[in-house]
């Protein structure tokens, strides 16, 4: 079972690596941003498989941390893409 889970982990990692070619090809920034998104999910899956295979303590906690932060980079990208690059005027904001 250990070998099987490790092998699947390596396979998942290899497939998301395939997806990383999208970062290279683009064409739009949104396309490039999807690859880390897929890598994030694949990384979580690989981490869970690794944890189950080796019984390493904390693997699930690390995976949970990754899930919490999975959206971060993409949200930052969307914010950047939705705004002009000039220094902006002050805005009130919510809150």
């Amino acid at each position, binding site marked *: 079972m250990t070998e099987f889970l490790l092998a699947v982990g390596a396979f*998942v990692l290899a497939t998301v690596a395939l997806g990383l070619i999208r970062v290279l090809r683009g064409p739009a920034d949104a396309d490039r941003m999807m690859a880390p998104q897929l890598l994030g*999910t694949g990384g979580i899956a690989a981490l*869970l498989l690794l944890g189950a295979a080796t019984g390493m303590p904390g693997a699930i906690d690390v995976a949970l941390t990754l*899930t*919490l932060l999975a*959206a971060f980079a993409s*949200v930052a990208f969307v914010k950047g893409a939705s705004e002009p690059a000039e220094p902006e005027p002050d805005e009130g904001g919510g809150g």
Partner: protein
Amino acid sequence: MSLLLDIFTVVAVSLGAVFFLAGAVGLLRFPDTLTRLHALTKADNVGLGLIVLGLLPQTERPLAAVKLIVAWLLVQLASGTVSQLIARTARRTEPPA
């Protein structure tokens, strides 16, 4: 019983891995941003879901099983939101072909 559970793990985890492969291939082969996004969400939702499902019988403590399910639910929430945001950005920045 444990053999049955092991078989369940092997089947579910392998199926999950296939969905990851499908997601990655779709991300590479599909023609435009929105269809690629569609492929991506399959890996996020079903791929990870099946892997989590397959790993459930292998957990030793109930807390670990709960954490696995929470991890999947969080990915659902995050990936759903991010897909919405990316799709909206893609539509705003590039005119439809």
